[in-house]
């Protein structure tokens, strides 16, 4: 029973990471109808930036904030410089550019930081919180950070004019221009936010999976599955999907399949969702244009 609760809790903790990444994916999908295949590598690269800062002597939380700001800028730059020229190109071309971005980020990280696995510190104590047996401090802290992040994002989009403008630009770019919104910059902002979210996800998961250039590919797969389960154009769905997938992964891994086929589980989940209910739990039905 103890382990069961721990599996659930651990699932919620990783689920928070998946939820954040899935949210980043949905944000970009909603505004551009592109799937950001490079989302994982951006998060990985951001985590390396944090690692560099921490190794240079910067305190954890200061490095945390700086990394978020740096990632935001990176996201904006990537959208303006690399993505914008192919915004209206055929789907294949766009997918190729995203893969190119994935590959470049992966290789630059490998070049600068080498492929040796590194440890990434957790800001939370090693001892379990309040003497509880089913949750570690890092898991609790990770859940907390994720919750704060999601809450901040929700408030931003719901209550601020800029958040409203971004939602409008994602929904209806033409009408948005007619109220004076600079749609191009809204897209860049969306990318910046997605990159920032990714950096938080990376920094929360790195202490668990260790830092190396290929650390995010499996996690990204789970984030894809989560986004699809929730509905690729539903932010709330993506978040819920993340937690569902996190818990599912841990339960299946502990009791059904073993931990060695986790990626296949994600693959099957993705294919099943796409085949049976492509819109996910909360998304709109995908209508193919005639």
């Amino acid at each position, binding site marked *: 029973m103890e382990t069961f609760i721990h599996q659930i809790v651990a699932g919620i903790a990783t689920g928070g990471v998946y939820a954040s990444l899935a949210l980043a994916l949905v944000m970009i999908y909603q505004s551009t109808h592109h799937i950001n295949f490079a989302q994982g590598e951006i998060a990985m690269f951001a985590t390396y930036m944090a690692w560099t800062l921490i190794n240079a002597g910067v305190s954890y939380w200061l490095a945390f904030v700086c990394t978020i700001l740096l990632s935001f800028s990176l996201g904006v730059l990537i959208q303006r410089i690399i993505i914008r*020229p192919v915004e209206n190109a055929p789907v*294949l071309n766009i997918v190729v550019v995203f*893969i190119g971005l994935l*590959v470049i980020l992966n290789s630059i990280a490998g070049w600068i930081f080498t*492929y040796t696995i590194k440890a990434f510190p957790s800001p939370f104590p090693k001892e379990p919180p309040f003497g509880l047996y089913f949750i570690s401090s890092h898991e609790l802290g990770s859940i907390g950070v994720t919750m704060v992040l999601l809450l901040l994002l929700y408030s931003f989009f719901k209550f601020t004019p800029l958040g409203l403008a971004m939602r409008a630009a994602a929904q209806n770019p033409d009408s948005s221009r007619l109220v004076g919104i600079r749609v191009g910059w809204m897209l860049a902002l969306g990318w910046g936010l997605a990159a920032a979210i990714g950096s938080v996800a990376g920094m929360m998961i790195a202490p668990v999976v260790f830092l190396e250039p290929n650390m995010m590919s499996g996690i990204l797969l789970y984030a894809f599955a989560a986004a699809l389960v929730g509905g690729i154009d539903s932010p709330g769905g993506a978040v819920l999907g993340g937690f569902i997938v996190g818990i599912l992964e841990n339960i299946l891994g502990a009791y059904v399949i073993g931990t060695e086929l*986790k990626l296949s589980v994600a693959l099957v989940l993705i294919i099943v969702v796409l085949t049976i209910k492509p819109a996910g739990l909360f998304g709109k039905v995908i209508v193919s244009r*005639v």
Partner: protein
Amino acid sequence: MSFNLLSSENSIPWIRIVLGLILACILPFFISNYSVFQASMVLSYAIALVGMNILIGYSGQISLGHGAFMAIGAYTSAILMDKMNIPYWMTIPVAAFICFVVGFLFGLPALRLEGHYLALATFALAVALPQLLKFKHLEFLTGGVQGIVIMKPDPPWETLFGLRLNSDRWLYFFTLAITLVMFIVGWNLMRGRVGRALIAIRDQPIAAASMGINTPMYKSLAFGVSAMFTGVAGALSAILVAFVAPDSFTVFLSITLLVGMVIGGVTSLPGALYGALFIQFIPNIADQISKAAPWAIYGSMLILFMYTMPTGIAGALRLLGEKFRPTRS
């Protein structure tokens, strides 16, 4: 001058082909054994890229997971040779058949997905596969993390027209023959009814369906055929390298194939050769700078080509050729 179905002249440049073949046959006797091996790898990659062409160029479907079919072909070959002592040349048709079936079956649900979603599903396939190959309950078959080592086959004759035939040279000719067969098969398929149907489906799916083309069938067929080509390439590469292991078939292999296709050109047979040359030799050159360098180059090339040369080198050459040739009526 191209084999491109889209060009108005479907003339086959016989002279160039014959010259090319003669060169190809003489080549192995003038270069080192390792270079012969590399040339064979280029040919096998070219077959894989023709497979990608059929799927992406003609059928308009995206795959980021064709490395998985190379893996299936390679492992089929390795398992047949290692566990059942089947001769290497017999494993090729078996691998082709198995990959065709798997591809066709994957195509059935996949056909409902468009663009990004298909890319996502095939990406997931590519990412998940190595873990599956390492799975300990399948180790008896796949050799687990260590993979399978194969015996390199001996040439059937000692000499050919007085020239010495060693293993590498013999396998080169074997690969060359298979490459020719696959190219001819690909050429005929794309020139005929299948190719035209695929292009119709790619460009005007609703119209194609209303014209009576069984769209789901053709799309799954395209996936199956393209998987078959890639599987043959995988089987060949297993024999050439004499070794298969899960980490040879990561998502980066699928990305490598994508690079080859983008660089070479998405709807042309010569493009498959250009692309194959690129993906075989760039790592060799760039490796010396850094382990990560080839990938930095791949990534930059992918992006640059999308900006400047979306039809690849073959497409660019074709455009250049049209500019400098006087227009025929």
